[in-house]
């Protein structure tokens, strides 16, 4: 009995390492070998009981027009094909099937507008959370909203894409990491 339990203990430990290990491996693959896209965004600031403070990213490119809304009504996952336009990611097309020969992301269908044609398909990307240090999340949201009202500033997410998977590398305001921008503001406030 003890031997069986010992074996079970070893298997349990392996499984407990396998899951975070695979998460790390998958993400490292996407981040290191994936193609980088910039997604224009506007963040808001909620928090998670286990993972702490994060900003939720609301992407500009999160919808596409479709001709027949009924076709998409009961679809939960879609494949979003991407293209680069003036340095930022644009949705090329959305399909229920895995595309070939083009960069794509597996995403969820948020909703389908069925009021008036053209109908809109809303997409939820798997990288809508960006975790920040506890003290920085609220400030990051404020800074990015300021940036939004200022037309000279652009907020975007740097996303690595590989084989349908995506990894969020950073969130930038005018080519500077949002964490650095907030750090600078916090330092300036504390020295005042």
């Amino acid at each position, binding site marked *: 009995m003890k031997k069986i*339990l*010992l074996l*079970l*203990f070893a*298997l*349990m*430990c392996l*499984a*407990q*390492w396998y*899951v*975070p290990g695979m*998460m*790390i491996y998958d*993400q490292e693959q996407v*981040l290191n070998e994936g193609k980088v896209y910039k997604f224009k965004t506007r963040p808001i600031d909620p928090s*998670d*009981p*286990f*993972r*702490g*403070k*994060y900003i939720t990213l609301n992407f500009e490119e999160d919808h596409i027009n479709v001709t027949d809304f009924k076709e998409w009504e009961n679809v939960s996952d879609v494949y979003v094909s991407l293209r680069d336009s003036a340095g930022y990611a644009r949705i090329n097309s959305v399909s229920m099937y895995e595309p070939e020969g083009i960069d794509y992301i597996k995403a969820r269908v948020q909703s389908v507008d069925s009021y008036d044609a053209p109908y809109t398909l809303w997409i939820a*990307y*798997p*990288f*809508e*959370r*960006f*975790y*920040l*240090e*506890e003290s*920085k999340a609220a400030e990051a949201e404020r800074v990015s909203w300021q940036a939004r009202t200022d037309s000279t500033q652009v907020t975007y997410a740097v996303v690595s894409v590989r084989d349908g998977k995506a*990894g*969020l590398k950073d969130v930038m305001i005018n080519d500077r990491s949002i*964490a650095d921008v907030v*750090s600078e503001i916090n330092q300036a406030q504390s020295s005042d």
Partner: protein
Amino acid sequence: MSKPILKDLHELVEATLITEETAQKIRVYYNQKEAQAPNRLVIVFGILGALLVGLGIILIIAHNWDTLGKVPKLAIALLPMLVGQAVCGFVFLKKRDHTAWRESSAAFLFLSIAASISIVSQVYNIEGTLHGFLFLWMLLAFPVIYVMQSSFASLLYILGITWYACELSYFNYPNETAWWYWGLLLLALPHYYLLYTKRSNSNFFAFHSWFIAASVTTVLGMFGNWLEEITVITYINVFCVFILIGQVEKIYQRRLITNGFLIAGSLGLISILLFLSFEEFWVELSEGREYRPELMDAYPYWITFGLAIALLIWSGIKKSFLSLNVKSYGFIIVLLLVFISFQSPQLARILTNIILFAFGIFTIRDGAQQNRLSLLNYGLLILTALIICRFFDVDMSFVVRGLLFVAVGVGFFAANAWMVRKRKTELNSNV
């Protein structure tokens, strides 16, 4: 030496009720018993310590230290799990018989799994839903219950899967039925059975009864995509299952407060029957013709019904059908009422009132027979609740209503006084 009997030994010897030799034997007996029993306080503080440290680590990690790079962050994230596994390994090999060690190391490992998945998600900004996270956590954590033979891990697990089902079925939009909850619950039941066979006198066993009853009651509403009325009668089946489990010999023999199944089942059944004693439920049920095919299709209802029938037959054969608590038959009665309501909702309503009244009377009778004041007063409370409910919807004169209340009030006094006098008489006759 905290037992009251030990403090009275000197007095008993002086009164020549027992000899000094008997007194000494009693002292030795309790001393040995105390030495053999695991120290509850050490177990409680051990678990509490592990719980606080584990939760503290989760909170510290949630701060998300920006100054740390990716690798140190990951190392810190996975370190608690490594420590948890190492301590569990040590306890498994060297201190398996020490409950405090087993329970606290298992609790720590249980929480450190959450910390490790959390920080990896945080470092890589992996989105993931909360219910997905809880599901993965519970799946990785459930072996801890069996490998470490940890009842506290089992309780944490029941809490975790309940949270998972609530997230998915209640707090998430759009709501989904948390089917996996039932599979996850099944994984916890062998441990409950082990406690039943080996440690049915332990506090952990009593806690499990309460936790399982509360968990199932909380999540059963996940089947709300069927018509509301069908969910209500599904609850009746489940409460009758609880009442039947609560009458299983080893559970029933213990103090009432430890019998979570019986208390939750009985209170749940009576509350729903009180709700059914109003007109609206039966009118709704009879007006909607779609209920009949819907009821036939509602397999959660029929599965729980089948479970209740099977348990009823098993309990009836083991004890006797007549000795079972009359509320155990509630689910069959309610199904008959549902069929009656298709013809006449008024009749179903009247019958519900009569049944509730009968349940109240039977409970009072049981209380009197078993010489239990709590049960006797519970029966009287059922009657009072029934009368209060009728206060709202019956066109009855104030005088009649007033008289009814006075009658039940007098009933409370009379029954309690009778019971107290009966106890005194029995005590005197024994002396």
